[in-house]
């Protein structure tokens, strides 16, 4: 017999006084008997086990787990998780779309790689030109764009390509001009093709070669490359055909500049002494006698003026594929870089579309600028006023150049003055050491100062670089118009999107 615990025996009978509340224990121990399903009162909630819980309750999962209700994580966790998942979602979606688009375009052109080709025949070949973007020390950016977005489709279609880069401003223009001149020389008969190339079994007659070239194409990535290409085209077809060694000419010019002359020894004391010691007033260093400026050596060739004059018509060029390209560089463009990082699918689509149009090969004539267009378009005219022609390809990209690029001329001037200020001191040490007027000091033994020859070579190198950079910048800067010649009117063609591309049935990206 188990009475209620505690039983009344524990508590004595009520004493007189204010009524005390009856002791009611707050917690009541449970006896197994009392664990009933339909218990009337009590702290135990009736457990209505339903559905899956009946099964799960036998699996050994702790019962408290079955009672848990779904609960949101805390506010801070929510913020964190939502931010991270949004960012990750953007990234993953973008890269998935990139892969999908690339795969789609590759599938479209893959069948072209299955066609047979004779053993001595060559596949179709395109030349890709890329130039240095102003402000970016990495000169490879435009070709990197080509390699990442345009090349995969070309490779899938078995179209061969040759990449030509311009590492500094103006290099591409010079290279194009030199190529054109060497071709003109070959065509005019001044140069003859080398015997080894003639003996090859794969050698084609020149017109066959030319036809194959026309079937190929030229890819130009970005507006700087376009400007340099056109400038090179103009230079190549407007200049004479003599072989000019630019370094040699510059060396001649610099040697007559007088920078390496001996400084005048100040005349003091007796005239006799003075005449004995001082060099003649027209200062020429003894070394300069050895380095007499020779007359300009033009390799002794006399090209008749009939061959030398630029022709009035230019042979047709292979069709051009103009690929728009912007290189984001600089601190203020970091938001653009971030946007670009999450939206690469647009670049993939643009690049693949360009490659596809090159592969299909539909062309249209270049929209040459009229005289009015040339007169009025430059960077200062607002776009809606100026009549646009193909010559304004990707002009909006020039708005993205860093502001510091326009200061190039000033920077080069500063570097020049600094160099020439430091030069006489170095020259004096070099000459003094060379003539044995004084011994090497300890520091000079370890790190021998540059000799006069080395100083001359250094000066030549620096001058060459500065002049070329300035020339190149003159071609590329936004204020210069794209070089144009009336002879170019009929020789240029552009690749266009084939009609199937503009159908609405194609998949669109968001």
């Amino acid at each position, binding site marked *: 017999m188990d009475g209620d615990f505690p039983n009344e025996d524990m508590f004595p009978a009520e004493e007189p006084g204010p009524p005390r509340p009856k002791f009611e224990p707050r917690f009541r121990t449970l006896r197994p008997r009392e664990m009933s399903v339909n218990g009337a009162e009590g702290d135990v909630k009736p457990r209505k086990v339903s559905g899956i819980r009946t099964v799960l309750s036998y699996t050994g999962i702790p019962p408290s787990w079955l009672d848990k209700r779904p609960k949101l994580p805390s506010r801070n966790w929510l913020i964190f998780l939502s931010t991270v998942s949004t960012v990750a979602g953007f990234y993953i979606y973008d890269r998935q779309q990139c892969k999908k688009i690339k795969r789609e375009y590759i599938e479209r052109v893959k069948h072209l790689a299955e066609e047979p080709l004779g053993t001595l025949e060559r596949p179709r070949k395109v030349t890709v030109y890329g130039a240095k973007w102003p402000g970016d020390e990495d000169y490879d950016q435009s070709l990197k764009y080509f390699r990442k977005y345009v090349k995969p489709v070309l490779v899938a279609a078995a179209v061969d390509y040759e990449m030509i880069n311009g590492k500094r401003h103006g290099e591409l223009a010079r290279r194009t001009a030199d190529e054109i001149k060497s071709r003109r020389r070959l065509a005019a008969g001044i140069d003859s093709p*080398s015997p080894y190339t003639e003996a090859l079994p794969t050698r084609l007659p020149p017109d066959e070669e030319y036809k194959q070239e026309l079937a190929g194409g030229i890819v130009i990535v970005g507006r700087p490359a376009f400007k340099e290409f056109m400038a090179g085209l103009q230079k190549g077809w407007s200049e004479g055909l003599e072989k000019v060694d630019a370094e040699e000419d510059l060396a001649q010019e610099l040697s007559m500049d007088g920078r390496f002359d001996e400084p005048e020894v100040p005349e003091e004391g007796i005239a006799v002494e003075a005449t004995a010691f001082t060099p003649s007033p027209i200062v020429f260093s003894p070394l300069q006698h050895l380095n007499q400026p020779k007359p300009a050596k033009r390799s002794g060739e006399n090209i008749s003026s009939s061959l030398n004059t630029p022709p009035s018509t230019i042979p047709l060029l292979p069709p051009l594929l103009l690929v728009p390209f912007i290189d984001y560089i600089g601190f203020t463009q970091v938001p653009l870089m971030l946007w670009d990082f999450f939206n690469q699918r647009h670049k993939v689509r643009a690049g693949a579309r360009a490659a596809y149009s090159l592969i299909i090969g539909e062309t249209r004539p270049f929209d040459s600028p009229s005289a009015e267009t040339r007169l009025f378009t430059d960077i200062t005219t607002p776009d809606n006023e100026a009549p646009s022609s193909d010559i304004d390809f990707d002009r909006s990209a020039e708005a993205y150049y860093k502001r510091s690029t326009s200061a190039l001329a000033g920077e080069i001037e500063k570097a020049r003055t600094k160099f020439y200020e430091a030069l006489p001191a170095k020259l004096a040490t070099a000459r003094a050491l060379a003539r044995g007027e004084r011994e090497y000091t300890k520091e000079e033994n370890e790190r021998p100062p540059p000799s006069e020859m080395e100083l001359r070579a250094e000066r030549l190198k620096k001058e060459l670089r500065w002049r070329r950079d300035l020339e190149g910048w003159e071609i590329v800067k936004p204020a210069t118009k794209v070089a144009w010649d009336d002879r170019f009117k009929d020789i240029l063609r552009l690749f266009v999107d084939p009609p199937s591309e503009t159908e609405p049935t194609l998949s669109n990206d968001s």
Partner: protein
Amino acid sequence: MDFSNFNAAEQAQMSKIIEKKQMQDFLKMYSNLVEKCFNSCCNDFTSKALSSKEEQCVMNCTEKFIKHSERIGARFAELNAEAMNAAQTPS
């Protein structure tokens, strides 16, 4: 490999040597090709005779290899010519 500085007797001897080497090279290539085509084409040894599929495969293999060799020869010659040009221009 410019044999123009050699006189007539040397050239005659060289051409004999070259002929002999070409024959040896051809035989080597032949055995190499047989092994290659066999390894990649013939995988079913349940029968003694070549099945038509295997025969077709061997034919294709031989043709392809010969064309492949031709193409590489052409490219190689171009490479050599370029190298000769580059070596000649300083002169």
